[in-house]
């Protein structure tokens, strides 16, 4: 019975179907800001390619970010409502860890740390240090941070001894400003597809021998990291934007 995985943490939406650790199919596209319009048609297309219907799915995994808030909200509310309607379990899975897992096969000799970078907009990235654990699953070796790409070296200068591999849409967006951690950071090539999160990584992470994770609606909520920006966006009660 298949698991449906969804990731909408970045501008690229990604969906995948798998059973256990076996990936049946994946799909996705650059969605920009149109996750809401594109996600369900993409899921339906994916199921069709496997001759499956949505009712055949028996587990949902959603990428919980961190990432763009509206993208995450679309992917996560879609996953939650599908799980609710189908009465099947749902799991939240870290989008940073999925990106780290995607990048891991690119690790070169002497590199022992993975630095997935997700574009946080406003000149910042979400990131977290990962090291490969059992079964080549990246395990977190730091807290999640949201910071300017020029500061990443300062964050891990003391913890990191070996060389690091960085990638992700945050690396692509800010490669010119990215601190090189004392010359020990290597970037994935700009055209390397492993810069893009693939939802199939969530199936690996939540499948047999995967990462530590939990099931339930409470786990399927966005990891925001940033507090709501109240100062700039307060509206008086029910004052809606089409009036101004």
């Amino acid at each position: 019975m298949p698991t449906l995985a969804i990731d909408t943490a970045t501008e690229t939406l990604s969906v995948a179907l798998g059973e256990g650790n076996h990936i049946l199919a994946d799909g996705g596209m650059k969605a920009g800001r149109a996750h809401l319009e594109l996600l369900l048609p993409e899921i339906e297309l994916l199921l069709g390619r496997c001759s499956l219907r949505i009712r055949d799915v028996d587990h949902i995994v959603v990428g919980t970010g961190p990432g763009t808030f509206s993208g995450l909200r679309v992917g996560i509310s879609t996953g939650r409502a599908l799980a609710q309607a189908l009465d099947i379990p749902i799991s939240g899975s870290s989008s940073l860890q999925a990106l780290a897992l995607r990048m891991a096969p690119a690790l070169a000799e002497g590199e022992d740390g993975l630095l997935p970078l997700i574009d946080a907009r406003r000149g910042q990235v979400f990131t977290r240090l990962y090291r490969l654990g059992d079964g080549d699953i990246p395990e977190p070796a730091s807290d999640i941070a949201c910071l300017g790409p020029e500061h990443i070296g300062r964050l891990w200068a003391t913890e990191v001894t070996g060389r690091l591999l960085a990638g992700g849409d945050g690396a692509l967006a800010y490669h010119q400003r990215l601190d090189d951690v004392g010359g020990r950071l290597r970037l994935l090539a700009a055209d390397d597809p492993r810069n893009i999160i693939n939802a199939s990584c969530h199936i690996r992470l939540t499948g047999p021998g995967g990462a530590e994770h939990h099931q339930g609606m409470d786990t399927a909520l966005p990891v925001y990291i940033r507090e709501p920006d109240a100062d700039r966006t307060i509206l008086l009660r029910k004052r809606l934007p089409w009036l101004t």
Partner: protein
Amino acid sequence: MILAIETSCDDTCAAVLEDGKLLSNVVSSQDEFHARYGGVVPEVASRQHLRLVNSVVAEALSGASVDLGRIKLVAVTTSPGLIGALLVGVATAKSLAYASGKELVAVNHLEGHIAANYLEPDPFAPPFICLVASGGHTSLVHVTGHRSHQVLGRTLDDAAGEALDKGARLLGLSYPGGAELDRLAADGDSSFISFPVGLDRPDNLDFSFSGVKTALYYYLRDAGAEQVKRSRAHIAASYQSAVVNALVKKTMAATRTRGCRRVCLSGGVSANSELRRRLAAACEGQGIPLRIPPPDLCTDNAGMIASAARFLPSLSFPAYLSLGATASGGLPDGGDGNHR
């Protein structure tokens, strides 16, 4: 049977409707979260919707003693509203419909407010003049059929409820203020200060409340603390009266210009006692029947969205999969449809 979801602003709502009768109507208010900030913070609202929407839907279903299998249609507000808030409701509604094999109806929020009038036990049929006044919208609509309406006037700046809330804030009342302003005004003399009424011409059915708000600001600034303290109730009554005056005058003008002798009031501001009193008196004076749905159907709720959905075309699979949400969007014009 219709399951409706409404998340256009700061209340997470779901309802189940059968043959025009509400079996459940759940509203999970976020007021306590937003009171801390002194207004609705869109990002806070969106986060709360995502946390609450599934349990609100579950509560609406169990409150109606049905499961999703018995639902025929899923309805959802797709515009207008806060975009981050709307998309949680739309993604949820689409996914529920998709996973359970239902059709979907996209509803405009203002159409919902109007359709509050069509609910049992006392449905009120078109044609009528409908004043929708809330903290987010102020529209005067000629409702000619269940699916056809013409917007006669709308606010050019603040919504009526927003104007009341802002006045309350200037008077030092705590958020959301409108209700407290109403209470304070009850002890005041509304002729104490003559505040201006915006766009006060009988041929203009649009509203403007920025003038009266500015007038209050300057009055409070120039009157001095002692004077303000002594006459707070009078100031509140005068200010509220100016806002209500515009609403009543233009609603009555609409009945004359359209030759339509039925009036409905909807939206959160219908809870304002001065508006209820004055509109009732004006309608009675003209022999015009006035209808105001109960308060829980006037404020934002999903019951009114379900009610509107009865008269709207539904989208079938797979057309609705690519449905989006829009922050801005007026009432769609449409021919009169058949009762579902």
